[in-house]
């Protein structure tokens, strides 16, 4: 109000050069000018968060995309409900991951991030959908395309970006980098192709052994799906009836090899053979979430002991927009038109946005507001990541062992050893 009176008094005062705009004193002031001025002054107060568009529902039901089954009789549910809070959460998470990956790419091109950087753009629906179904006690292990997973499993955006730039606020204090991010019930972040799947089976074994009634989700790509150790893991998981869910994120290309040129059988959900499987459309968040709810139920209930019917192999069909890593432009084995076509027609964020807006769970303005908040959050995180300090060299020997038997760690030569330090709290210890 004070602002308005100031403006009005300034306008209505007779003046010299600037006053020619308004004529000779207040008499020449048009009511339209007054209206325009006051609207401009009051503009910040007029945009309301609620009620700017129509009314919003609190819950809506959606149809899931069709599934394909292997050795299973009943599919996951054909329709699911989603609350408004969940919808906004999923949208926000997907947008953060999209912007996070884009910022990581830019940081890499500025040479602020070194080493490897594998981007998850286009596949956000998988991690957000799976996380939406997991319970706090469930574990996840994935490969090197893990920035999105690190975020949804609990690492902050600053933590992820600072880890990429190798600074002390990173989730692994900057020592890990892109491929080695860890947090509670998230086992990384693994560099070797396909190495995480047997480890994931092991985590499932631990869960069963400790009677936790928790599952372990092990993710791998279509390129890793032909690795031998995966089939060994399937065998042991089936034999021991482990609560393991093996998920293949099929984005159509290994590094640069399309699935048709790499695999004799491209139905990755059937590769478990004796292990039942489900094919899921990975561009729809709610379908993924529903399939995981089904899987959790399958792995923790029923069966001979009543504690689960054994492992499952899921295949989630998705697409990645960037190249395999930052050294791959991504256009030498596929056309730009193909990438653009997927971006225009099957983008997961766009599809989910259309769903929830047409169902009335949220308005377009709200979502736009979330977009700008997300952008700001990621930009701030980038600034912090660029300017944060690095850890001192003595931390090379910190947090190596949980229970060190000897605290003297050899350095580059035997004559300058380091002393083992404990800096962070231990996580993921049974």
């Amino acid at each position, binding site marked *: 109000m004070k602002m308005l009176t100031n403006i009005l008094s300034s*306008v209505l*005062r007779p*003046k010299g050069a600037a006053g020619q705009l308004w004529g000779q004193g207040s008499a020449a002031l048009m009511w339209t000018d007054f209206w325009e001025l006051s609207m401009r002054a009051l503009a910040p107060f007029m945009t309301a968060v609620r009620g700017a568009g129509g009314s919003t529902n609190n819950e809506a039901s959606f149809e899931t995309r069709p599934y394909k089954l292997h050795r299973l009789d009943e599919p996951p549910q054909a329709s699911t409900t989603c609350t408004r809070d969940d919808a906004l959460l999923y949208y926000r998470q997907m947008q953060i991951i999209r912007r996070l990956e884009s910022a990581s790419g830019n940081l890499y*091109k*500025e*040479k*602020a991030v070194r080493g490897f950087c594998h981007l998850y753009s286009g596949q956000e629906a998988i991690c957000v959908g799976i996380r939406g179904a997991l319970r706090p006690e469930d574990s996840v292990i994935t490969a090197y395309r893990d920035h999105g997973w690190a975020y949804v499993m609990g690492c902050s955006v600053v933590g992820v970006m600072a880890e990429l730039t190798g600074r002390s606020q990173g989730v692994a204090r900057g020592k890990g980098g892109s491929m080695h991010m860890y947090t509670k019930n998230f086992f990384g972040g693994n560099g070797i192709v396909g190495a995480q799947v047997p480890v994931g089976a092991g985590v499932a074994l631990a869960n069963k052994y400790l009677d936790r009634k928790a599952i372990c989700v092990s993710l791998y790509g279509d390129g890793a799906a032909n690795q031998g150790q995966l089939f060994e893991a399937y065998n042991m998981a089936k034999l021991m009836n482990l609560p393991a869910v093996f998920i293949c994120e099929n984005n159509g290309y290994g590094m640069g090899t399309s699935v048709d040129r790499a695999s004799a059988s491209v139905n990755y959900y059937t590769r478990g053979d004796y292990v039942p499987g489900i094919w899921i459309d990975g561009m729809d968040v709610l379908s993924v979430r529903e399939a995981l709810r089904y899987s959790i139920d399958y792995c923790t209930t029923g069966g001979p002991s009543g504690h689960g019917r054994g492992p499952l192999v899921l295949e989630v069909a998705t697409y990645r927009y960037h190249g395999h890593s930052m050294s791959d432009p991504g256009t030498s084995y596929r056309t*730009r038109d193909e990438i653009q076509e997927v971006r225009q027609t099957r983008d997961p964020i766009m599809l989910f946005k259309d769903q929830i807006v047409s169902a009335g769970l949220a308005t377009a303005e709200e979502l736009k507001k979330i977009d700008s908040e997300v952008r700001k959050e990621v930009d701030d995180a980038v600034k912090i990541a660029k300017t944060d300090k690095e850890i001192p060299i003595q931390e090379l020997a910190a947090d190596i062992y949980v229970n060190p038997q000897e605290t003297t760690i050899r350095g580059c030569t035997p004559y300058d050893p380091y002393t083992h330090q404990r800096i962070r709290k231990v996580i993921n210890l049974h």
Partner: protein
Amino acid sequence: MDIHYIFFVKYHVEGIPIKMPSLSPTMLEGTIVQWAKKEGDPIQPGDVLCDIQTDKAVVAMDIEEEGTLAKILVCVDVLGALKAGVFGKDGDEDEGVSFMEELLEALTDMGTHYTPEVKESNQVTPHSSPAHHRDTGLGSEKVEVKEHSAGLAMCDSETYRITHTLHMSHDDHASASDQQLAVTVATTHEEDMVQLQKEELENIGKESHSLESLPTVPEHLDSIHEDHQLAGPTRIMPIEAASQIDPHPIDLTSDLTEIQRENLENFATETTETATDFYNVTEEYYEASQEEIEKDLLECEEREVEQGGADYLAAVGASSVPQLPDDSKDIKVGTVIALMVAEGEDWKDVEMPSTEETGSTPTPPTEETPRKAAEAEAGHGGVDYNHTTYLTLPVALQLKTGGPVDVSIAVATPAGLITPIVRGADTRGLEDIAATVRDLATRAKANKLKLDEFQGGTFTISNLGMFGIREFSAIINPPQCGILAVGGSRLVPGASLCQSLAGSHVGIHTKQLRY
């Protein structure tokens, strides 16, 4: 009292800077070869913004943001585009399209900024210099370079005579986004020039000298396009730089003294003698040595091609050379190359960045090549103070030509090899010679030699030791009587400096050849 309150709405859109990305792990600089978007074009995530020439390849830069391209701050590097072969077209060998026409077509395709306009004229050449007109015999065709024009010139790599120019003049009144550059192409009478060159060369020596027998630089090293046969090897450089070079005169007979002219005629008339007879060596040895000469020449040429335009501009004086519109130098990774605005904002209102934003790019360590290290060690102009100047005096004293002995010292400049002369070297002291050599070399590198300082001469000393060449044989520059080629020195027990002495038997007593 009137207090003036000016109530206005200032509507400024902050532009999102787009920086030069590092598209490969080793890339530190790049040049823009082609813009795929114009100012005002909408940008979708995943669109290609521009093609960038990195150290290895031409890579497309795509962009993840959504918005509108507001301002392009860096224009295309035409020179870089030429080198990158952006103007290449596949499969039109049958069309017989000339190189310049193709260049024009490609410039049209490249974007809105170029409206090419072919103008047939023979009015092209550099700033006049009296020396140029005196020696070439081409007549006094003086041309004025258009004021405020930038452009590219294609010149013959040996003589630096300009054959084609590409003028780009921009309207100073228009803003950068409204620039319409008119490209005019002017050609010289190419065939006439080639003809004149041939005639001049024929005048020097009679039947023994023909164009084919003289050593030439392999064409593929200099011509930008393999598909197009240009008139001799060419270089492409900014026109102002090209116009400041004094073209090497072809007429070598203007400054000869009586004795030298006589010697030359005598040498030229003895046509029956072949190289094998003269050198008293076998065919195979001769051919092998010819191959070595060609190889050395090739290596020198490759190094020159590598150094490229940037060094050249430095030699000519880059500050005085007007650049092509905006930037034709390499752009460092992290500099802002364009501005875009977010979706929904008016791109015309973008404000220019006041300070250049630099990312946290680490400064790379400077690359030390053996040549650079040797040059730094050798000091100035590639002249090895130790060997060449020490040799000048005794060589001068040995030669008894009946007149003053003028020893030419071979100096490597970015423009090529040039041989400034130390006049009367037999009567001067060592320090004097050293000082003269240093002065000549510095000025040669800066292209400030007077004509009589490199024309003429009795004997040449060429030193390629600092480039790692162990030994080489040099070709005599007629009408000089000999050339001493000094290779690199090494500390080897019992061995000495590798030098090869080529001399015409005219004017040098046979005994003096043993050194």
